């Protein structure tokens, strides 16, 4: 038994004094250290369990969740955006999703509020704007876009055009949660109306091989060959074994072309992209297809995250845990 195993066993018996004592008797050389560790863990657990969110925030969050659940249920019932006709039906929303960001928080909680009718408030002025973000929901009220600092619902104009990054027209059904998008349109009062939607994709994974014009990527979505061009932007030095984020487009012939390849440093990559697809929200590292989990709820599909963590030793990667 290693010390780590003994520690884990002792921590597991922290609430069972008799069993803990019996166990410590079997590892006399480590008794002192283990007793201290158990003490620390008891103290830490007790203190941290006392930290709780405020009740107003809890209520607000619960209301937000229920609103989302209700909205998604409606979307599900209506089989969202199955056609362009459905897209134009999004024009009817009188509400807008705004972000309630806190002072230091980039991530925002979204609350649905009523927006006064535009009809009685004077003539809205059109203002050209581009919004870049990730789709978090598609619903009858519009498409919810999480940008880097906010979340909002946008309407799609009746003649909105959806394209990939090459300008090829794509079907409206491609617009789904998790999809990175660039929307071009204009503000009309408190609403943003998009008339052009560009879909963008991203992948996260480990570079398994490199060629002069491509890299091979092992990701949670599978293994891919991604072509690079002189226009491909690089952040960091890509090497075999690098954990990277690739912004890409899929050409009409199915090949993938990298627009940008960002090498994640060990610290950040370790934190940011394990199960990096397990979200559909404001992440700048959202997965390419939704990614609150589709194929990513498998703990073993992280594309080698363990390998980028020098802090850990996987030599004890066994199946036994705390019993």
């Amino acid at each position, binding site marked *: 038994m290693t010390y780590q195993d003994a520690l884990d066993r002792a921590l597991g018996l922290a609430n069972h004094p008799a069993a803990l004592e019996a166990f410590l008797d079997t590892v006399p050389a480590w008794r002192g250290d283990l007793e201290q560790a158990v003490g620390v863990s008891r103290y830490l657990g007790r203190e941290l369990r006392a930290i709780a969110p405020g009740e107003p925030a809890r209520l607000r969050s619960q209301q937000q969740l229920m609103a989302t659940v209700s909205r998604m249920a409606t979307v599900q019932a209506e089989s969202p955006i199955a056609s362009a006709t459905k897209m134009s039906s999004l024009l009817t929303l009188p509400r807008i999703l705004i972000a309630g960001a806190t002072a230091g928080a980039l991530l925002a909680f979204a609350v649905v509020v009523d927006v006064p009718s535009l009809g009685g408030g004077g003539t809205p002025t059109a203002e050209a704007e581009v919004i870049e973000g990730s789709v978090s929901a598609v619903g009858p009220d519009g498409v919810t876009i999480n940008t880097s600092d906010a979340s909002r619902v946008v309407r799609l104009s009746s003649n909105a055009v959806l394209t990939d990054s090459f300008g090829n027209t794509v079907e409206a059904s491609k617009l789904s949660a998790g999809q990175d998008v660039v929307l071009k349109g204009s503000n009309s009062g408190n609403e943003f109306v998009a008339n052009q939607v560009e879909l963008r994709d991203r992948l996260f994974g480990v570079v398994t091989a490199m060629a002069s014009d491509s890299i091979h990527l092992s990701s949670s979505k599978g293994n891919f060959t991604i072509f690079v061009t002189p226009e491909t932007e690089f952040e960091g030095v890509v090497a075999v074994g690098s954990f990277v984020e690739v912004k890409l487009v899929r050409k009409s012939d199915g090949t993938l072309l990298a627009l940008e390849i960002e090498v994640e440093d060990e610290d950040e990559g370790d934190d940011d992209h394990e199960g990096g697809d397990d979200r559909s929200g404001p992440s700048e590292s959202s997965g390419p297809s939704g990614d*609150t989990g589709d194929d990513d709820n498998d703990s073993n599909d992280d594309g080698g995250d363990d390998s980028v963590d020098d802090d850990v030793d996987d030599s004890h990667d066994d199946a036994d845990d705390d019993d």
Partner: protein
Amino acid sequence: MLPFEDESRLIARGERDLARPWSGGAVETSVDTVDEAALVTRLAAFDADAWSAIFDRYFTSIFRLAYVRTRHHSTAEDIAAQTFAEAASGIRRYRYRGVPFRAWLYRIARNLTSDHLKAERRRPHVSLSETQAIETPATEPESRFDFLAAVDDLTDDQKTVVILRLVEGYSLAEVAAIIGKSVGAVKQLQFRGVATLQQRMSPDQVEGLGR
């Protein structure tokens, strides 16, 4: 083998307390014992009661995890709220393949927190003391030992492991699933995290806690 098979066996034998030795005897809701597939089916059908139960069971826990990493009360609340909104938006794409829903939920929270921290690092620096002056949580307990300062010395992974293991009482395998590492890696992170905390405490403090 399912990653939580060992825990499941214990629970099946009515030995939940042994499976969750650090749960402090907290009453487990039905969410914990309900069949996973049935739960996911209900969630995917946007069953409000199921979502409400999930929220009640995990909101505080997810908040706590985010708070320890961000040390910012309202940010942690936002992240916790966002986690559930993201989960509801994405539940239709969740497929149970051995990783329970709650692990998936924690992974969303963890990734949102990582995104927040990454974004914060890129923004103009605001001193922690200034932030804390504004955001000191009313519910944060006063402590004779500044354990949060000690926790700050842990890496993000160590913090996550410490919270999930020592506070929430998850098994090594479950924590491994949440953070996407091996059981051995989690064991190592736990070891280093606890060792760091021990080093931050004086011998007298540790001695006083040992019993």
